[in-house]
């Protein structure tokens, strides 16, 4: 990639608490270019959502980005003044949230919520803003968009609400969209419709897309590249086919083996033993070593970043074997 839209380098987002510092994101790096989809995969608590919020500068206090760089079109977003950041949010960088039932304001009409987004970044008339809102609603497949503008969120189903949220994200044709598990809360049929639509839109509009998910199945069909997160770090990244077919990191292997569709019928599902470590009390060195069957004493050291071709990983015992 010659000129990636987004480069995240060694990002660290920490939450000081009474019990100590929670290192929610602790050295995450990845990049994503125009028209490309990056799948950011991991369990709950691995720091993937916080990574997304860090990029938009929306980490809830007392959380704070304490290290690393977030280069968006070559410009470092870390330490950008709030008013500069506000100009980028919703304009050049948009975000879609997980639960469509919660992301729209229940007491404001869809039209109001869309028009205000247009007016926040462009000096156009309300009429023009409304026309743009209507067209964008049509683009994401909402029937009779003109009438729907005056409707309220409770009059839409979950899938329709997520389409509205996507339309809001697309209003300014952003260069980057962060999607935080946007289909998790939806029915499977609606999920696939929305996936297909987002895929087409990101390709047609040339947007970079960071798709945060715990669902490898969804990411497999959508992403060009995958970055697997564990305990605040990216432990493995590479092209989707490569990561799914020849995973290197034992954690990725465990993750793939615990997908029901990958196991032979009737065979017991193979779960990763143990629990994700508490972010307050992570094992030193490789955080996965306490659950890893390949772990040796060397794993108590910090695993360096290794790479081969387009693959990169942090592990002393890289595997590279076919999982199925």
């Amino acid at each position, binding site marked *: 990639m010659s000129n990636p839209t987004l480069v995240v380098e060694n990002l660290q987002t920490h939450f000081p608490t009474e019990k100590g510092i929670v290192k929610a994101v602790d050295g995450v790096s990845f990049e994503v270019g125009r028209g490309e989809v990056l799948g950011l995969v991991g369990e709950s608590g691995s720091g993937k959502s916080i990574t997304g919020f860090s990029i*938009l500068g*929306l980490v*809830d206090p007392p959380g704070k980005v304490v290290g690393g760089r977030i280069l968006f079109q070559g410009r470092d977003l870390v330490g950008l003044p709030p008013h500069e950041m*506000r*100009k*980028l*949010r*919703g*304009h050049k960088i*948009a*975000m879609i*949230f997980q*639960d469509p039932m*919660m*992301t*729209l*304001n*229940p*007491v*404001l*009409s869809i039209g109001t919520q869309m028009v*205000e*987004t247009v007016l*926040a*970044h462009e000096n156009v008339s309300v009429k023009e803003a409304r026309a743009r809102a209507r067209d964008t609603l049509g683009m994401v497949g909402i029937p009779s968009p003109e009438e729907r503008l005056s409707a*309220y969120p*409770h*009059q*839409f*189903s979950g899938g329709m609400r997520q389409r509205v*949220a996507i339309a*809001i994200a697309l209003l300014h044709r952003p260069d980057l969209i962060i999607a935080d598990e946007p289909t998790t809360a939806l029915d499977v049929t609606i999920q696939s419709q929305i996936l297909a639509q987002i895929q087409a839109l990101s390709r047609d509009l040339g947007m970079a897309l960071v798709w945060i998910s715990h669902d490898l199945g969804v990411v497999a069909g959508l992403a060009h590249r995958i970055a697997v997160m564990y305990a605040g770090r990216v432990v493995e990244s590479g092209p989707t086919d490569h990561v799914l077919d020849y995973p290197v990191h034992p954690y990725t292997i465990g993750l793939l083996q615990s997908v029901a569709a990958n196991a032979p019928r009737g065979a017991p599902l193979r779960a990763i033993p143990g629990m994700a470590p508490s972010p307050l009390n992570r094992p030193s060195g490789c955080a996965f070593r306490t659950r890893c069957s390949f772990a040796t004493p060397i794993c108590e050291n910090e695993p360096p970043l290794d790479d081969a071709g387009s693959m990169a990983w942090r592990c002393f015992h890289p595997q590279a074997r076919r999982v199925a």
Partner: protein
Amino acid sequence: MTVFIIRRLSQSLLVLFLTSIIVFAGIYAIGNPIDILIAGDATPAEREQAIRALGLDRSLIEQYGTFVWNALHGDLGRSFVFNQPSIDLIFNRMPATLELAFVALALSLILGIPLGLWAGLKPGTALDETVMTGSILGFSLPNFWQGMMLIMIFSVWLGWLPSTGRGEVGSVLGIHTSLATWSGLTHLILPAVNLALFNISLVIRLTRSGVRETMPLDFVKFARAKGLSERRIVSVHVLKNILIPIVTVVGVEFGSLVAFAIVTETIFAWPGMGKLLIDSIMRLDRPVVVAYLLVVVTLFIVINFVVDLLYSLLDPRIRLGSAS
């Protein structure tokens, strides 16, 4: 909507009917007004005549029956003391009380909402603590004591404001109000503040807890992700959501302001309905007490109706029914 209004009306009539029975029986039980009304040296014949003239010789049921019959013809009885229709007496005093209550209501919203927002947006700061402590004082110090302190500080020590009476009444757009003249305004300030203090505290607390509940919600974060300014998020997205509970409580409280302005009116010698009620109770002027209570009950019914209408204005989920 029509069904709603009809049901509401019949409920209201029932409430009025029941109240009239309770009030009538209650005031009958307090004592015989004849001892207060006629001179001590009146002959038994004069006494007998007065009793008959006022209809006090008949049984309670009979008296009540007459009262209801007259009330249905728009006559709530004549004051024993002033020999005027009691409803006229009340309506003569009502503007002064309504004015006081409206100004108190306005004060509690104008001061309560911004202070509550301010405290709620910066929880735990010195400012928040100060506002909260102040509101506890407003809640817990007895109203009459607050009134006396206000008089002591602003009238006696500082000499800034008059402590009794209503001052000159001017006329704006045909409405007679103290707000039209400087003298009226200065007379209004202390009683209005006294009456408002409790409600200011109440609105502060409601607003603060509303803000604290609403700010962490997803739709606020999504509004930030759209690039909206903090001002718009707070004044539109958050405020419109928290107004619903505030309107409920303030609506009910407005009724209380009107009905129970008695203490304030007594302290500041404000010529309103409350003072009339106290005087009438002291003189056992039954028709005025009954008429007063019926007027207040009607007022509460009207206010509750208005609050219900405001709800549907504020919350589209009520206005438009559940999801289509």
